[in-house]
């Protein structure tokens, strides 16, 4: 067919496969590194939650001042809220692997546990903070739902920034097929097709976007 230089086709192919494979390997390494970062953050959070839970048990069993429990709870809420943002960023930037999705599920369970613990502490210690649970559509949101969730997320972020320790902001994926989350959703009469939803103090449900002022009114 061609003259003596036809082997250029194969040489270029081999070189491309070699360089491309290195790129893909580096990509996998980067994404695995991100997953391990999340994993290590998760382990720390898991330990901390366990500690908080034990503390709660102690406060619930013995009649002692629970200011420390409230403060620990608030700190932990802030921590997992920030970790949720990191997790979201890494998830959005992972293209080759989906190992981080599993981490997301684990975090959802952790946040659910924390939510339950938060309810308990609030009842036992008569704490003044308010629980804001944000249940969102994680797996297949339409473009419209995605945009709505993005605005909900910004809005709640602004409220959290203003209210600081007065609120516990707990974002949880409502469609990750986790029995505990499903049970709680059932308990509060929340259906998956209605996601996203903001649940304030396990009583007030906000389905549609409201202004910051209106949500703050609900908080009062």
């Amino acid at each position: 067919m061609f003259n003596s230089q036809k082997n250029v086709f194969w040489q270029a192919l081999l070189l491309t496969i070699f360089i491309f494979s290195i790129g893909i390997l580096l990509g996998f390494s980067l994404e695995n590194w991100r997953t391990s970062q999340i994993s290590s953050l998760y382990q720390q959070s898991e330990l901390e939650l366990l500690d908080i839970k034990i503390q709660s048990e102690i406060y619930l069993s013995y009649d002692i001042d629970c200011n420390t429990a409230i403060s620990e709870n608030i700190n932990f809420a802030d921590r997992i809220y920030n970790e949720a943002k990191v997790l979201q960023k890494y998830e959005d930037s992972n293209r080759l692997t989906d190992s981080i999705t599993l981490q997301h599920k684990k975090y959802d369970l952790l946040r659910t546990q924390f939510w339950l613990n938060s309810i308990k502490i609030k009842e036992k210690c008569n704490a003044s903070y308010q629980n804001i649970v944000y249940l969102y559509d994680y797996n297949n949101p339409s473009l419209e739902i995605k945009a709505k969730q993005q605005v909900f997320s910004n809005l709640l972020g602004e409220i959290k920034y203003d209210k600081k320790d007065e609120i516990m902001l707990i974002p949880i994926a409502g469609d990750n097929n986790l029995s505990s989350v499903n049970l709680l959703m059932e308990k509060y009469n929340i259906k998956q097709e209605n996601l996203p939803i903001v649940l304030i103090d396990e009583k007030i449900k906000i389905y549609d976007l409201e202004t910051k002022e209106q949500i703050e009114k609900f908080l009062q």
Partner: protein
Amino acid sequence: MNSLSIIYLSYMFIALYMLFFFLILFVRNRKELLNYPVAEKDYSYSISVLTPAYNEEDSIEDTIKAALSSEYPIKEMIVIDDGSKDKTAEIVKRLMKQYSNLKLLPKENSGKADSLNQGIKIAKGELIAVVDSDSYPEKDSIKKMVGFFNDLKVGAVTCSVLVKHRNTFLEKLQVMEYAIIAWTRKLLGYIDGIWATPGPLALYRKNVLLEVGGFDRNNITEDIEITWHIISRGYKIEMCLPARVYSIAPKKLSYFIKQRIRWDIGGLQCINKYKSLFLKRGALGLFIIPFFAISIFLGLVGVGVFFYLAIRNLISSFFYTNYTLEAGTSFLALEDLAITPTILNFFGIVLFILGLLFTIFSLMSMKEGQFKGFRNVFNLIFYSIVYLTIYPLILVIAIGKMIKYKIQHKKIGWGTK
């Protein structure tokens, strides 16, 4: 991995492959890129220059003077006046008093290919040099090209087509484009992959032109078609990189787009005509046609993905804006500015840098660098990012026009004048 990521990675793989392909060709042949064989015997071939002209009063005089000042003796130069309505014929007649080997062939307007065919009929030279009426070959260009015909298998020889005027932004972008095309065409020559002998200056064996029946009147890029036809008959095409011809590139965007649409339609016509050779017989069937077909496929898929994403983002932005206004919250949070790069971003950056280096390197090899100052750097980046992405869009327009003409049974014209 989602399907979009797979598409992106596939495109990146192909782009990387093409870069390495040209890089290897360059490394292997770098010492002989500028070489050209000397003709076995001085002035062994007689040459007829054919210049078809239609309303070329602004450029024809300089074209004739440039062609006839060739260091290689020109037996005759025939200007085929394709029914011009301006002073083209008058100018040629005036110059005929000055140049004894200049001839005028007046005829009714019938297109470039037919004009060339009529010129071939009366041409006496063994080699036919086609010179467009708005192109200016350097004095030594033909002399440098003739030696390639020592090889009897060579049917045609092309050269570096460069931009004559370099004043407007569009012209400067085309300076880069033409130089890169010339450089890559030379490299493709090493695998018998030259797919065009552009009109500004190309040399053909007359007997080969007669053997293939001349230029195809039904193809609007007769220079691509004739090349494919010659290759299909088993002849070789060579590229003489140091031989240069300067051509007038479109100054206005509308002319530029019309010209590119014409090129694309011509390419599609060629694929259609030679589709039976796909993956068969020699470089045409095994490289050129698949190369064209894959380029078109990739271009169309690329445009499809581009529009899919653009529409998707538009819809998302619409919803996002509506909801943001409804909630009275800020459009952009500080955290949105922090970007976490994906592996595709890294690949994209690496490819962009490699592509840029390839462009700079080819421009430097062609001595068309002119990288002094911020403006040229801007031109280079604009060329790499914006200019090249226009190609697939023009392809879509060309396909649309072709279908439209087919339905309306209209003949496709040049559209540049």
